[in-house]
């Protein structure tokens, strides 16, 4: 656990942890509101947004990409609503139509445009490349207090930290609104809480989390982080505050354990090369959820099922 760990593992682990927390926070409310698959839809439409941003700016810099992805998420939400209303299509099917179409358009644009000069391809978009986010100039734990080494920190780290902090702050500030609007919409409306705005804000927060985490863990693995930790947390308790705390705990556990298993697991088994860290984190999240489904104290809940 020395210099090599700091250089090759510390930053990916931190980014993975932050991404998992950022996704798990809005995920809690999405699951309770039966909108779990909004995360699925958003993480798919991030790809066309990023491709369009690349085509417009000609470079793979962070902010245009984030803006493009955010805009695409917004377009997707509007389109899903429009298809649902204009076509009188049920929500699940409307979502299936919109996000697959946008994703297909993104793939097509990507394949048709010359992206050979930059690191932008479909597989990366789907699977992420957490392992590559290493800290080049780190020489050991001492680098943590060495400003010169900070320059070579992967830029994803401060970005992900910022997003995670903003989402945590938003969750805390709007806690009461979120809680009431999630559990009793009618009561929330009677209390003058802007229920629609809360719903849209939640989807927006999920989009921000998905877009920021996308870089690190890839679009489909974002879904696992949206759903697995909060779903497992839901099976541990009946209290929302406790649930959110559990979900953060599960998110951290998935990220750390997943990364360690991916990096060192094959070595323990006698292999030589690491396996996909993002994939392993998703698997770990799934296993934790599976255990919660089997042993979680609140897996059935106190209210009889309809």
């Amino acid at each position, binding site marked *: 656990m020395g210099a090599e760990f700091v250089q090759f593992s510390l930053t990916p682990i931190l980014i993975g942890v932050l991404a998992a927390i950022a996704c798990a926070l809005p995920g809690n409310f999405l699951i309770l509101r039966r909108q779990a698959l909004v995360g699925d839809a958003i993480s798919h439409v991030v790809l066309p947004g990023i491709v369009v941003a690349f085509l417009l700016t000609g470079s793979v810099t962070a902010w245009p990409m984030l803006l493009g992805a955010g805009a695409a998420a917004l377009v997707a939400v509007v389109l899903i609503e429009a298809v649902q209303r204009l076509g009188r299509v049920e929500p699940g099917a409307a979502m299936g139509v919109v996000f697959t179409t946008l994703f*297909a358009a993104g793939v097509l644009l990507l394949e048709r445009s010359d992206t050979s000069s930059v690191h932008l391809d479909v597989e990366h978009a789907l699977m992420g490349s957490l392992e590559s986010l290493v800290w080049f100039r780190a020489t050991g734990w001492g680098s943590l207090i060495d400003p010169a080494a900070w320059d070579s920190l992967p830029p994803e780290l401060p970005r992900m930290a910022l997003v995670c902090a903003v989402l945590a702050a938003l969750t805390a500030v709007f806690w009461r609104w979120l809680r009431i609007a999630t559990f009793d919409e009618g009561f929330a409306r009677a209390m003058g809480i802007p229920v629609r705005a809360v719903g849209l804000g939640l989807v927006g927060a999920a989009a921000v989390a998905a877009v920021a985490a996308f870089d690190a863990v890839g679009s489909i693995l974002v879904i696992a982080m949206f759903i697995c930790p909060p779903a497992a947390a839901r099976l541990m308790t009946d209290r929302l505050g406790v649930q959110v705390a559990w979900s953060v705990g599960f998110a951290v556990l998935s990220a750390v354990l997943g990364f360690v298993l991916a990096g060192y697991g094959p070595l323990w088994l006698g292999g030589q090369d690491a*396996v996909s860290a993002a*994939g392993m984190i998703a698997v770990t999240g799934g296993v934790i959820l599976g255990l919660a*489904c089997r042993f979680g104290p609140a897996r059935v809940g106190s209210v009889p099922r309809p």
Partner: protein
Amino acid sequence: MADGWGPRILRVWRADPVGAFWQALTLGAGYNAALVTLGAAALGFAAGSGGSFLVLRGRALVSDAMAHATLPGVALAFMVMVAMGGDGRWLPGLLLGSALSALVGLWVVGWIARATRLPEDAAIGAVLGSFFGLGVVLLTVIQTMGQGRAAGLEGFLLGSTAGMLRQDALIIAVGGALVVAAVWALRRPMTLVAFDPGFAAATGWNVGRIDMAVMAIVTAVAVIGLKIVGLVLTVALLVIPAVTARFWTDRSGRLVWIAGGLGALSGYVGAALSASAPDLPTGPIIVLVAAGLFTVSLLAAPARGVLAAAARHHRYQAQVHRRQGLLALARGDAIAERYTLRLMVRAGFARPDGVATEAGRGAAARLLRDEQRRAVARDMFRAGPPADDGLMPVERLFTPDQLRAIDARLAPRAVP
């Protein structure tokens, strides 16, 4: 994408893209390409018709979880086949593996939804994400096995028909045809269960078993579609044609076949387009063709389309304005509303300054009489005529006998 038959197509395409597309569309781009195109059409038909049962049951996105859950199966099958000393890319083996893991995924979704209080959509998302994650992990394991860049298994993500073996194309074409046959054989019970599970159960069908049959068809579509649409976009091929077909009919029997036809058209045109150009990935093209058909239907379908609804709304609005305008003329009031005035002028009922013409006065008198009749009718027939929207002339709402009775009450003020 530029291996297999790619280079030849590349030359043709550079010279004449439309010709190359036409050639592929008429199955003239080689035997393999023709097989793939026909296979894609069969697959599209199976997906459209099978998917419509899924959508009608409100379970569209379960198929997304199943499709993503095929990835670990594909990778495991590859590893097992290599470990047994064979060629890891043998398609039947890969498809068998993918089917098994899709079914495991489906079972896990069902187990989570049954055994816990989590809603089905959370179960779908969890299975989708973690099974796909497992698949990605296994792909990286394969990459390190020294069998060359994951042996082209990435092609299963988004579909890749370039350089497909003849044997694989045959498997896909035959598999697609078999699924179509299965849909045909089971169409009656599946339609019944999709529209009215209660009635189906009451008439002796085993709803659970029929649902399983639908899921088996979905699994087959996902598995056969791996090489063509790829696992990320399978859900689109199942859902989009079914949703599109709903715009064109209200009848269950037709819905299934229209969805099948739309799916087949998407598969055929999409595969041909993809085969005619060097860097058009098959899956996304097929999905975009399907989405194009959906958009056209959403806008232009005769009864349920957006344009038809807008035209209906416009006609209704004009009717209301016309009525208000005529009532104003009858009372001798000025018409303040611009749109109303324009309608009156266009119909020749009023001059641009709002003064009624001869025709306008006649029409106004007739409307006034209609109003009086309506008032009497409301009094006489309390329940009212069934379809009265306040706009239809009273003559068309009542029988001649009833009209005579109405007019008898109106007698003192009747217009000759």
